[in-house]
């Protein structure tokens, strides 16, 4: 069990109409831990990820982050969101702003940093994800992999306590997946707390501390990657792995 819990979900439930997408979810993520969430599509993994940032509301149960329950709408929620970064499948870079402004915007508006201070920090982060040369370009001028790395830099600019990744490589060409995964590997090595929803089993094996397997709105397995991939205990996970690892 994690020594120092940063993100805790207790008995979380949510429906989309008839569909019970999250069923009594319990999950604890410790500080510095990397948890990879995998599972078939429609299993609720993205919803789980989005619920932690309250982009999806939950119906019952509790989510606490660093000991504080997730606030309702308002100032408290905005503050909390600044502490928990989010990286989306479709990047969601601000289309009307340059790469540099994308990374600086929230620093100016939320962290109230000065313009030159924010830009300096942004350039450091862009350098870290290998995109310092592209600072003045617009998102549409970059490849998908580059856009996703900018999105990671943008999330890091808020100095978050944890990062949530919602299928960060699912919209990418195979060639570009690695450049994003490498950045994520580096973050994991640097001790960032991460929840990663992904289909990249290689990443799950190499970078994760734990693998959470979800199916039909439930957490079916929650184990260290080696155990999960070599000896899954549930039939649902065996079935899933046999399908994706065949080719």
């Amino acid at each position, binding site marked *: 069990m994690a020594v120092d819990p940063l993100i805790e979900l207790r008995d979380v439930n949510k429906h989309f109409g008839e569909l019970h997408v999250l069923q009594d979810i319990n999950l604890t993520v410790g500080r510095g831990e990397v948890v990879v969430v995998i599972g078939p599509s429609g299993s609720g993994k993205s919803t789980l990820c989005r619920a932690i*940032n309250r*982009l999806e509301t939950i119906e019952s149960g509790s989510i606490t982050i660093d000991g504080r329950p997730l606030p309702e*709408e308002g*100032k408290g929620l*905005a*503050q*909390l*969101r*600044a*502490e*928990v*970064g*989010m990286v*989306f499948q*479709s990047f*969601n*870079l*601000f*289309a*009307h702003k340059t790469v540099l402004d994308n990374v600086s*915007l*929230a620093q100016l*508006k*939320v962290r109230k940093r000065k313009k030159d201070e924010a830009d300096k920090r942004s350039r450091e982060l862009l350098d870290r994800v290998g995109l310092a040369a592209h600072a003045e370009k617009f998102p549409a001028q970059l490849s998908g992999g580059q856009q996703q790395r900018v*999105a990671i830099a*943008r*999330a890091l600019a*808020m100095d978050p306590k944890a990062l949530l990744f919602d299928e960060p490589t699912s919209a990418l060409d195979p060639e570009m997946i690695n450049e994003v995964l490498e950045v994520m590997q580096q973050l994991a090595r640097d001790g960032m707390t991460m929840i990663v929803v992904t289909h990249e089993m290689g990443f799950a094996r190499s970078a994760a501390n734990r693998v959470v397997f979800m199916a039909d709105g439930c957490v079916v397995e929650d184990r260290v990657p080696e155990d999960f991939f070599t000896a899954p205990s549930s039939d649902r996970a065996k079935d899933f792995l046999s399908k994706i690892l065949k080719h």
Partner: protein
Amino acid sequence: MDVLTENFSLYGKGFLGTVELTVYASALALVLGFLMASFRVAPVGSFRVLGTVWVTVLRNTPLTLLFFAVLLGLPRFGLVLPFQLFAVIALGCYTSAFICEVLRSGINTVPKGQGEAARSLGMNFGQTLSTVVLPQAFRSVIPPVGSTLIALAKNSAIAGAFSVTELLGTYKTLNELGYSIIWSFIWIAVGYLIITLTISAVFNVMEKRWGVAR
């Protein structure tokens, strides 16, 4: 033909009156429309209700009725203002309902992920709307806002019936002076064309400058 040259100052006054009505009412309509559009997409339910009621009432009321309501109604509550100002209020509020809906449809063209990304970074509703969503919505609403303001310029003619100096109203005087109705109206139409084509031109430039480069 002489009707223009002989009554240039009359035409000029009417023309200026219409320009003033158009400019002031446009400003009011844009500000109110912007505010109401923000209300209609706000996370707070009562704001959304206020925005919806505003649009429903003003968009579905004949403008003439609205003029009567403002010009005859407000003085009953002790609010006595110059007629021109009343006309600006009536025109501005009426058009704001249309501007609101145009802006809202522009907001809806911005992918949801843009707002989510902004919120996930800790930006509040106002910041998200003003720095991320509206600048992108703005690009796609330039043409319909132009159309709405042209409609406003033409609607301003109704103010003439309430003894506000404006372009169409000049025909009454000209008619009494015995000028040809046809030529009086042709020059009035030219006056409106100058105003509406100017609005078109301005919005064309804006579209070229800021329109969507997808």
